[in-house]
C-alpha cells in the first residue's frame, strides 16, 4: 500500500520514449529525492505525476487509485501540487493574485488567509512586493513565489522541481529547512534537486535516474555513502 | 545537385506543359494562382519568416498596380519596363509607413497594417491627388510586350506570370538559406535573444517589410498588365486576408507550402463553383477543416539542411 506509486511508467515525446518504465514508491510522510543528470527525465517524471504529460505506458496510483488518466486540474484537487521547473509564475498578475491562484482548489477562506500569512512570513519579500507584477520580480523572488504558490493549496504531496534554482545560498538553506518543517506537518515531498548533497541530507530516500531509467534506489544515507553517487553527484562538495 | 534537378526540374517542366491541355478558363485560374503565389511568397517573408502580423499586404500590391497603371496610361511607359519602378515605389511606401510602427508588437502591428490597407483603399476611392480615378479606377492599361511580342491570351500570360513566380521562388529560396533569412527567423522566435546575439532587429524587420512590399508591388504590375483595368475593389481587406490565409494554410515560412496554399485558396473556390451560392460556405468550412487537421499548415517549413564541416582532430571538446 504505497501513498504514491509509479509502476513501470513510460513516457514519450512524439515518438521518442524518454522514460523507460520506472518504478517509484512514495510512502506517506516521506521526503523523496530524485537525482539525475541533465536530460535524465526528472522533470518529465514530475510533469507526468501532475498530469501535464500523459504516460504512454504503466500507471501512477495515489492511495491505490490510478490517477494517470485524470486531467491535471483534478490531480491538484487530490492534493498533489507542483513547483514546476522554470517557475512559471503568472507574469502579468500580481504577486498576491499568483498566490491566490495557488489556493484555487480550496474553498475555505479562513484557511486560505492563514496559509497566506504563513507564506508571507516565510518569504517576507513577497509580502513587500504583493502588488508588484510577478514578471518583474528577480529570478530568486520568482522562485519564492512559485514555492509559495504551490504551498497555498495545502497539498498532501508537494512535487518540487529544482526549488533552489537561482536562490541565494542563505535562502537555499532556509527553503530546505522549510521543506523539512512542511514535511513534519504531514506533507509528503518529492524533490528534484541538482544540489544533491543538500537534497539527500533532507530526504529519507532517493532515486537516481539515468537516461530514463532508475539506476539506483536506496535510503539517503546509503546513497550518500554510495561510491557511484559520490562520484557523479557529490563530487565537489560545498566549499 | 542532380537529385535536386530531378525533384524540382521534372515537375516544373510538367507544369509548364500543363496549359497545353487546359482551356482558357483553367489557364486563367492558374494565372490567378500564380499571382497569388507570388503575393503569398512576398507576404511569407514578412509573416512566415519574420513573424510580423501583416494583414494589410494589399496596400503594397495596390501601390505597385497603381504605379504601373498611372505611368503606363499617362506616359505610355511599357508596363513590363515598369516592374522595377513598381517594386521601388511599393518598397519606398512600405519603408515610409512602417518605419514608425515597426516596433509595435503582434496584434497592434496587425491592426496598423489593416489600417494602412484601408487608408490606401479609401485614398484610391477618393481619387487622391486626382490620379487614381476614384472608384472607377484606371482603365486602358496597355498589354505588356516582350521583345516586340504582345502578351494577350491567358496562355501567354501563364508563361509570363509563372516565369516571374519561378524567379521569385528561386531568389526567396536562396534568401531563406542565408544569414539574412536566418536573422529573420531569429527575431521571429525571440526578439530579445536575437538582439542579444548581435542582430539589429529593427533593421531586419524593416528590411523584410520593404522587400516583401516591393515584391507585392511588382506583382501589382503583373496584375495591372493582366487585367488592363484596375480599381480599388481589387485591393480590399479581403485580398490581404486571402494572402494571409495562403501563407498560414500552406505552411508558414515554407515556399512549397505557400505554393500549395495559393493553389488551394485560389483554386478551391473555382472547384467549388458547382455548389453555386453555397460555394463560399463550403470554402470556409474547408479552410477550417484543413487548419484543424494540419495545424502547422499543409507543408510546414522544414529545417534548413547544413553540411556540418568536419573539424580537424584535436580541436574543440575537452
Amino acid at each position, binding site marked *: 500500500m504505497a501513498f504514491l506509486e509509479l509502476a513501470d511508467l513510460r513516457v514519450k515525446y512524439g515518438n521518442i520514449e524518454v522514460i523507460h518504465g520506472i518504478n517509484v514508491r512514495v510512502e506517506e510522510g516521506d521526503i523523496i529525492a530524485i537525482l539525475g543528470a541533465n536530460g535524465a527525465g526528472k522533470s518529465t517524471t514530475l510533469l507526468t505525476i501532475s498530469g501535464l504529460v500523459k504516460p504512454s505506458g504503466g500507471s501512477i496510483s495515489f492511495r491505490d487509485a490510478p490517477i494517470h488518466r485524470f486531467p491535471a486540474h483534478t490531480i491538484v484537487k487530490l492534493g498533489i501540487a507542483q513547483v514546476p521547473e522554470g517557475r512559471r509564475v503568472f507574469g502579468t498578475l500580481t504577486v498576491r493574485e499568483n498566490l491566490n491562484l495557488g489556493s*484555487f482548489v480550496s474553498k475555505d477562506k479562513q484557511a486560505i488567509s492563514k496559509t497566506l500569512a504563513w507564506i508571507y512570513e516565510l518569504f517576507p519579500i513577497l509580502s513587500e512586493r504583493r502588488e508588484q507584477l510577478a514578471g518583474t520580480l528577480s529570478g530568486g523572488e520568482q522562485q519564492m513565489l512559485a514555492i509559495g504558490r504551490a504551498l497555498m493549496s495545502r497539498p498532501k504531496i508537494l512535487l518540487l522541481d529544482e526549488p533552489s534554482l537561482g536562490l541565494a545560498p542563505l535562502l537555499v538553506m532556509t527553503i530546505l529547512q522549510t521543506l523539512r518543517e512542511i514535511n513534519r506537518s504531514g506533507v509528503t515531498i518529492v524533490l528534484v534537486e541538482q544540489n544533491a548533497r543538500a537534497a539527500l541530507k533532507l530526504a529519507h530516500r532517493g532515486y537516481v535516474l539515468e537516461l530514463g531509467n532508475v539506476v539506483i534506489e536506496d535510503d539517503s544515507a546509503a546513497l550518500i555513502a554510495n561510491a557511484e553517487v559520490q562520484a557523479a553527484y557529490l563530487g565537489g562538495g560545498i566549499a | 545537385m542532380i537529385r535536386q534537378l530531378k525533384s524540382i526540374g521534372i515537375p516544373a517542366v510538367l507544369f509548364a506543359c500543363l496549359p497545353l491541355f487546359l482551356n482558357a478558363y483553367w489557364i486563367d485560374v492558374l494565372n490567378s494562382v500564380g499571382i497569388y503565389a507570388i503575393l503569398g511568397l512576398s507576404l511569407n517573408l514578412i509573416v512566415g519568416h519574420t513573424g510580423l502580423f501583416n494583414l494589410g499586404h494589399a496596400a503594397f500590391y495596390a501601390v505597385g498596380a497603381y504605379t504601373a497603371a498611372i505611368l503606363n496610361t499617362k506616359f505610355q511607359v511599357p508596363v513590363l519596363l515598369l516592374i522595377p519602378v513598381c517594386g521601388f515605389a511599393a518598397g519606398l511606401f512600405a519603408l515610409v509607413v512602417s518605419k514608425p*510602427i515597426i516596433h509595435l508588437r503582434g496584434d497592434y502591428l496587425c491592426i496598423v497594417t489593416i489600417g494602412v490597407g484601408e487608408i490606401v483603399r479609401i485614398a484610391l476611392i477618393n481619387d487622391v491627388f486626382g490620379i487614381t480615378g476614384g472608384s472607377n479606377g484606371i482603365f486602358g492599361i496597355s498589354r505588356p510586350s516582350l521583345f516586340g511580342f504582345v502578351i494577350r491570351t491567358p496562355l501567354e500570360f501563364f508563361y509570363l506570370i509563372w516565369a516571374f513566380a519561378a524567379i521569385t521562388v528561386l531568389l526567396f529560396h536562396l534568401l531563406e538559406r542565408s544569414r539574412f533569412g536566418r536573422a529573420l527567423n531569429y527575431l521571429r522566435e525571440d526578439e530579445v535573444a536575437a538582439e542579444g546575439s548581435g542582430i539589429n532587429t529593427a533593421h531586419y524587420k524593416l528590411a523584410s517589410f520593404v522587400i516583401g512590399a516591393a515584391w507585392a508591388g511588382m506583382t501589382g504590375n503583373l496584375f495591372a498588365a493582366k487585367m488592363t483595368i484596375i480599381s480599388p475593389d481589387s485591393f480590399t481587406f479581403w485580398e490581404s486576408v486571402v494572402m494571409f490565409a495562403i501563407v498560414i494554410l500552406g505552411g508558414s515560412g515554407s515556399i512549397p507550402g505557400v505554393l500549395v496554399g495559393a493553389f488551394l485558396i485560389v483554386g478551391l473556390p473555382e472547384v467549388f463553383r458547382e455548389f453555386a451560392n453555397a460555394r463560399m*460556405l463550403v470554402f470556409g*468550412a474547408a479552410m477550417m477543416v484543413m487548419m*484543424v487537421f494540419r495545424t502547422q499548415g499543409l507543408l510546414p517549413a522544414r529545417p534548413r539542411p547544413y553540411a556540418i564541416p568536419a573539424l580537424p582532430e584535436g580541436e574543440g571538446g575537452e
Partner: protein
Amino acid sequence: MEQFFQQLTNGLAVGSIYALIALGYTMVYGVLKLINFAHSDLFTLGAYLGLTLLSSLLLVDRLGPLGGALVLAAMVMGLVAVAGALLDRVAYRPLRESPRLSAVVSALGASIFLQNTIMLIYGARYRVYPPDILPKASIHMLGVDIPLVRILILGASVIMMAGLFVFIQKTRIGTAIRAAAIDQGAARLMGIDVNRVILLVFMVGPALGGAAGLMVGLYYGQINFTMGWGYGLKAFTAAILGGIGNIPGAMVGGILLGLIESMSAAYLSFAWKDAIAFCVLILILIVRPTGLLGERVAEKV
C-alpha cells in the same frame, strides 16, 4: 455648437455599439491571444436570431416592450453563447497547441462559413425588424434631441462592461481566466480546468456580441448578412485602440472610435472618415504602443 453636441451624441451612439462588440473580442483575445474573426458573424447571428425569435414568439405582444426586449436579449445571448461554444469546440480547440496564426486562419474560415450559412438560411436581401418595438421617446438636452434608445444602448454597454470588468478582475474565476491566458500549463497546475475556462470565455464573449447584434437590429431595424465585417473591423480597431485584452480599454476604445468618426465626418470629410480614424489610431499607437489603457507589460530578461 448645436451641431457639435448632436455629433457628439451620434458618435457616442455608434461608439457604444463598437464598444459592446469590442468587449467580446477583447475577452476572447485576453485568454487565447486569438483574434476571433468569427466574432463579427456571431454578432450578425445575434441580429438574425433576434429577428426570428421576435417574429415567431411575439414576445413584445405578450410581455410589453421592455419585458419583451429583456427576454429576447436573454434568449439571443443564450443561443449565441451556444454557437460560440460550438465554434470553439470545432474550430479553435483542436488548434490550442499550434502556432497562434493557424488559429487566426481557422477563425477566418469560420467567419466565411458562418456568414454564408446566414446568407443561405435567411437570404441575401436586407431583412427588416418589425417597426416601433423600442419606445420613440427622446430627451432634450443642450439643444439636441437624444433618443432614449441611444441612452439605453450606451447604458447597456456600460453595465456590461462594468460587469465583465468585475467578473474578470475581482472574482476567483476571473483570475483563473487571466491565469489561463498567461500559461495554460501552469494554470492546470493550480487546479484550473483550462478547457472549461476557455469554454466560458467562448460563451460570454459571443453572448455580448449577440446582444450587440440584437441591439443593432432593434435600433436600426435593417440587417444584412455582411454587416458583421464592417462592425467587426471597427470593434477590433476599438479593442486595440484601448489596449487589447483590457476590458475598460475596449469600452474607451469603442467610444473614442465612434467620436473620432463622427467628428472627422462632421468637420473634415465624410468620405475620408474611416481613413482619418485609422490615422488617429496609428498616431495613438506610435505614442502608446500598447493602446490607451495598454496591457501591463512584464517582460523582464
